[in-house]
């Protein structure tokens, strides 16, 4: 079965093409969905890609979360289907309340684009089954607001639910608890700062991102009727 991914595009998104290419290389059929669409095409997973939705003006994700398409994304998530927000996509999902906490400006107060090592903190999520717990993945980050934060209560719930999927080996942005990526309580929505689509080819420096995207496909095909 061919998995289908809807990639949501806001004015200012800029990683949608890269995501489509990386998923396409894994055999996924992708479709770009403009933010004013009220609905999503029939799909197994939704990607909210990186970029600068609405210019990141005011606050990252602040305006995007009100786009018409977000209702359908919410419904997709509520149905227990997979949603991945990468970088700006995570910021949008946070603002939309689909993921806990908030993303603040990097503690170094500079935009940071570089390769990072992230450690798999939970290999039992739909986004990490192809990896092993403790495995270190080389995946690049590219953001100005990747400094994840939440209050103490939320953090203890996040821990209790094992929502943290990836932690930085060398925290590039000051994120609380070195969080590089985490899920919602139900475990079907992931936000992550590093860009797995940029780590999908040896020629470009790493293939580790395929483990993340591939895990999602495994999850989707396991759900598919035989």
């Amino acid at each position, binding site marked *: 079965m061919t998995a289908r991914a809807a990639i949501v595009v806001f004015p200012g998104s800029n990683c949608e093409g890269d995501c489509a290419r990386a998923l396409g290389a894994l055999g996924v059929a992708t479709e770009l969905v403009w933010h004013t669409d009220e609905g999503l095409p029939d799909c197994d997973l939704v990607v909210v890609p990186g970029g*600068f939705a609405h210019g990141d003006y005011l606050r990252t994700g602040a305006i995007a979360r009100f786009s018409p398409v977000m209702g359908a994304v919410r419904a997709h998530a509520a149905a227990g289907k997979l949603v991945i927000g990468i970088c700006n996509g995570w910021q949008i999902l946070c603002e939309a309340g689909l993921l806990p906490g908030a993303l603040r400006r990097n503690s170094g107060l*500079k935009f940071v*684009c570089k390769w990072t090592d992230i450690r798999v903190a939970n290999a039992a999520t739909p986004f990490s089954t192809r990896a092993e717990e403790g495995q270190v993945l080389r995946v690049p980050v590219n953001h100005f607001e990747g400094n994840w934060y939440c209050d103490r209560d939320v953090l203890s719930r996040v821990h209790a639910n094992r929502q943290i999927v990836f932690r930085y080996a060398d925290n590039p942005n000051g994120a609380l608890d070195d969080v590089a990526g985490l899920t919602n309580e139900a475990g079907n929505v992931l936000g992550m700062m590093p860009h797995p689509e940029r780590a999908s080819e040896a020629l*470009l420096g790493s293939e580790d991102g395929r483990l993340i995207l591939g895990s999602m496909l495994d999850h989707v095909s396991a759900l598919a009727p035989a």
Partner: protein
Amino acid sequence: MGAWVHRELGLTDDELDSIVRRLGRDPTYTELAMFSVMWSEHCSYKSSRKHLATLPSRGDHIIIGPGEGAGVVEVVPGVAVAWKVESHNHPSYVEPGNGAATGVGGIVRDILSMGARPIALLDSLRFGAPGDAHTNYLIDGVVGGISSYGNAIGVPTVGGEAVFDSCYAQNPLVNVACLGIVEGELQQGRAEGPGNVFVLIGSSTGRDGIGGASVLASAEFDAGSSEKRPAVQVGDPLAEKLLIEGCLELAGRGLLVGFQDLGAGGISCPVAEMTSKAGTGAIVDLDQVHRREPGMAPFEVMISESQERMLAVVDPADVDEVLAICERWELVGRVVGVVTPTGRVVVEGGGEVVADVPADALAEEAPIYDRASIRPGELEELSAAEPGDGPPEDLGAALLALLSSPTVASKRWIWEQYDHMIGLGTVIGPGADAAVIRLPGSEAAVALAVDGPGRYCVLDPYEGARLAVAEAARNVACTGARPVAVTNCLNFGNPEKPGVMWAFTETVRGLGDACEALGTPVTGGNVSFYNETEGRAVFPTPVIGMLGALESAADAVGMGLVGDGEALVLLGDTGGSDFGGSEYGKVMWGALGGRPPALDIDAEAALHRLLHEAARGHLLRSAHDCSAGGAGVALALAAFAGGRGFEVELPGDEPHRSLFAESPGRAVVSCSRDDLDALSDLAARHAVTAVRIGATGGAALDYGFVAVPLKVAEKAWSTGFATSISTTID
């Protein structure tokens, strides 16, 4: 109109006379404003045009040479790219963040105007010595501006250079180069077909940037410059991103008859140039221009440099479709005029005709000056001065001093702020000799480098320009690419000064000769004059943007040492006296004098051919060119990039000359022992000296006559610039 208005607008008395003669009457204020921007140095190239015309610009692979928005080059059969560099020096000094950001926006629209998708940016930066609070403020602002704009529009900044010298302290240089891939039909900046309409697409027009070209970029700075500040614009990367996508869709659907960006000179510029080129005319209705401020005078609308706008010429039958596409991309598109057969640009506003002038008078027939050019007397003294080639007290300390000097030290602090990966094309990113970008939909790749050794140019602008071309080509060749075309940005002082003009003409001559010899035609560029504050000019600084072609991205060679026990080979000959304008002379002796390094351009070309063939034959594990700091520094940088040391012995009797002389035409390469004979044979066939100097591996930079622990050297290099920039900002 006051008698002196034209002078305030930057026009001379003679220029005004000539306008009156062309019109047969006094110009209106709007006309005068249009002439002032179109005849400004920035837009008309009036001091440089005559000289630039001598540059070699033809070649089988050159699809479009100078004169359009950007040059277009066929890098491999069937794959064409647009390539251009432009300066935003003055705005970046006045307001570093927005000045640099709008510089990125401007060059990106140049590429877009060809119908090409921008896929890579490089920035070439010059500042005073970092550490000084104001210099750090400029660096921080400029880098932040490029980062905020380039990252947001989704175009990776994949390379560049940053050079520091006190001559740039009051005149920073901010040159940005952009590469685009031609996806469909090439677009042309021509307003063909009377009856077609002009559609203005993008941001609304405000009073920002009025007179930017004539006021900011075409005059020297002085104490009163702060009064000219409102001429700075604020960039809107979101609008630019939408403009890119919307316009590429218009181009892709074949809806554009003519297309040009609005940059310096505002809407005046594309209207005049597109009609002048096509032999047509225009009627422009300013009331249709969407504005963001009330009460703008016609002249303000006509020359406002508000950002993120393009002008399209469209068949009236297609207008609805064009506007619908604009709307879907959340862009405002407005029909603002019509193409006429009259040869005149007629501007209407508020029901009145506010301008009616021949298009050619504004564009094609702008004045051309053959300015006086005299070799400055001070050059004799400079040539006679010490280059600073005495031996150091301690070779190891000298090496560390060079590695930590801001010009040589790691620029990671800069390029980590740039998204250098988006687009999934960056095979080799910043921190290398040249960036290697795989082209979408193709196995092929391009290699891109920018270089401008001002310290050589000030000693001898002719030789300096040749060295600049040689170095840029060498950087590209080290990745395995074949250098194929050049774009350039010539940064100089006030051209009304004969000494400056002499350096300029010598530079153009050197640029032309070197490009001819290397077979890399000049496809375009930019001239930035008046880089002077309080009468002090920057070094003559030609920034060369070299484009290289790689048939396969997988052939690209990195600069870092790979594997232990591989053979290290020095290619090319070392001239022990090549210290004029050197980094060693500057860092160790505070010297600037003598002759620039001697360049044998044929030997240089042979080296490039050798590197290209060796890369195609997969003989090289790494390659890095020798430039600032000589072979000693080149080896160290290859070691840092590869995370391993080496053991070598360099030819020559005087260690500091072997280590630090800046002879061109050289590179340090590594190869597996098994390939050594093949490489030697290949070198012999190209008549390039190849000396096996040692082997890779170990935890030291071991040069034989001196050894430094890798960790110590790397620390000096990685913190040299970062420390001086962060201490005073944070």
